[in-house]
C-alpha cells in the first residue's frame, strides 16, 4: 500500500526531521520563557489625567456620557484644575456611586 520511491522517502524523512526540530525548539522556547521583569509602578498607563484630558479624548474613551464629559471640562474651565479626584463629586451628575466607578479611570497629576 505504502510504496514510496527513494526520493519520496528522502523528502519525507527530511520534512519530518525539520518538523520535529521545529517542535523541539518551540517547546524549549516556551518551557524556558519567564515572566519578564515585573516593574512596580504607581503610574497607571490606562488612567486619564483629569487636568489634561480634552473633551474629544474623554468622549472617545467611552467611560462616561458626552454630557458628563462636557460637564467635567466646563467645571475645569470655570474653577481651574482639579486638586483631588474627590472634586469630581462637585459636578452635577456625579454622585458617590458614579464616583466609585470613575475613580479608577482618572488620575490627578
Amino acid at each position, binding site marked *: 500500500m*505504502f*510504496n*514510496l*520511491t527513494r526520493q*519520496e*522517502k528522502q*523528502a*519525507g*524523512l527530511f*520534512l*519530518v*526531521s525539520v*518538523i*520535529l526540530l521545529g*517542535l*523541539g525548539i*518551540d*517547546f524549549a*522556547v*516556551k*518551557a524556558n*520563557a*519567564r*515572566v*519578564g*521583569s*515585573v*516593574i*512596580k*509602578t*504607581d503610574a*497607571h*498607563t*490606562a488612567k*486619564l489625567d483629569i487636568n489634561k484630558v480634552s473633551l474629544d479624548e474623554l468622549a*472617545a*474613551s*467611552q*467611560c462616561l456620557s458626552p454630557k458628563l464629559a462636557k460637564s467635567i471640562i466646563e467645571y475645569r474651565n470655570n474653577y481651574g484644575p482639579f486638586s483631588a479626584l474627590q472634586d469630581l463629586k462637585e459636578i452635577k451628575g456625579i454622585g458617590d456611586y458614579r464616583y466609585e466607578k470613575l475613580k*479608577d*479611570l482618572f488620575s490627578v497629576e
Partner: protein
Amino acid sequence: MKQPLSFFTLAFCLGIFAASKIHVSFLATYFLSIVILVLASFLFDKKPFFHGWLFCLVFLAGALSFENSKILPACHIAHQAYVGSGGYCTVRGIIDSEPSVKRGRKSYIFAVSQIQFDGLKSACCGKILVFFKGEKNLLYGDELILNGKLYRPFSGKYGSQSYGDYLRGQGIFLLMNARLALSTNSKNKGFPLKRLALWLKSEMEKIISRRVSGVAAGILDAMILGEKKNIPPLVNNSMVKSGTVHILVVSGFNVGIVAFIIILFLRLMRLSRRSRFYITVPCLVIYCLITGVAPPVVRATVMSIVFLSAYMFKREPDIYNSCSLAALFILLINPRQLFNISFQLSFVSVLSIVYLYPRIRAILGFDSLKIKYLRPIIDGCLVSFSAWLGTMGFIAYYFKVFSPVTVLANVIIVPVATFVTLCGFSLVFISLVCPPLAGLFATTSESAVAVLINLNSLLIKLPGAYFQLS
C-alpha cells in the same frame, strides 16, 4: 507511490486524534520520535521496515504538534491573569482582527504585549477577545491600552463543542469587557497585506450596501466576502434545513470563481502563462485574507495554487495530493483545526466528491449516456449526491438535522448561487469601473437573491424534506 502526501497526512491526523484522546508527555514522546528517526535513517533501504517507521514518525509528529499547541509559555496572559485584583487590569497591545459590531458592542481579538494590575507591570503574550461598548473608530493593527475585567469563556455550547473549546481552538483563553480604551497614537502595527485585504473588504462591503437592499446585501456579503453578520437568522435556518447553507459561506466554490475570473481577465490581456500565475497567486492569497482565513478558503487557496503550479510547470496535478498538502498546511499551523466542523466538512465533502462521484457514475452506467443535454443535470445530481453521502453523518451529528431534500436542493440552488456570486463580483467590479451601469447589476443581483431565498423556502416545505433529530 502516487499520493505520498496522503500517507503523511493520514498519519499526522491520526497522531493528533490519538493525542487528543490520550494524554502523552511531550518530552517522552519527543525522545521516542528521535529514537525512531535514527532507526528509520539506518533502515532507509529496508522497504517494509522503513515505511512502518516513517508512518510512526509522522504519527508521533502529529501527536507532538497537538501537545505543543496545549503548552503555553509562562508569560502567557492566561497564566498572569487572576493574580491581580478580581480580574480588573490594564493591558497594552494591538488589535489582531477586524473589529465587528454586534448589538452595539464592538468585539475584536487583541494581541497583548503588556499587562498591569495592582501597580505591577510586566511584559506578556497571548490573545484575548475584547468586548467594548462605544463608537470609537478602531482598525486592525491599532495599538491600544485597555482597562477592564478579564474572565474565562462561559461553558455554553457553540455548535457541538463548548464556547471555551471553540475559543481555545483559536488560541484565545480569556475575554475582556473593556471599560476604557485609549489609543497610543503610534503607527498602525498590523501586517500590511492583511491591512490591504481588510481595506478592500470594507470598500467592497460599502459598495454592496450602497447598491443593494438589506437582506440581499447581507447574503451577497456572506457569499462574496464571507461576512455572515448580516444574514437574517430565518434565511440561515432555512438553508441549514435544506442542506444548502454551504453557499452562504465562502468556500472552494467561491475561490474557484475568483481564480476563474482573474485568469480569464489576464488571458484577455494576452499575458503569458508565467505572468498569469504570478498575478493570480497573490490575488488568491489576498482573497483568502479578505474572507477571514477560514479553513475551507485556505484549503481551496492551497489547492488552487497547487493546480496553478502544476499548470505552469506543465505537470499533471493530483487532487488527493493537493488536498493532503492543504490539510497538512492548516494542521501544522494549528493542529486543533482537525476538530473544527468547518475543516471536517470542507475536506470530507471534497474527498467524497472526488472518490464517490466517478464510482457512482460508473456503477449506474452514465458513462455511456448518449443524450448530451442530460449529462450536466445528471452530473450535478451525482456530485451533490456524493457530497451528501460523505457529509450526511457529520451534519446529523453536529446540526441534528437529516435532510433528504439536500440532493435536490443543491441541484437547484447551486446554479442560482453561482449566478448570484458572479453577479455580486460583477457588481463590485462595475461599480468601480463604470458606476452608471452598476444599477443594472444591482437589480439583477437582488432579483437573483430573491429567487434563491424563495426556491429554498419552497424546497423545505416539501413533504419529508428534513427531519429534526433532537
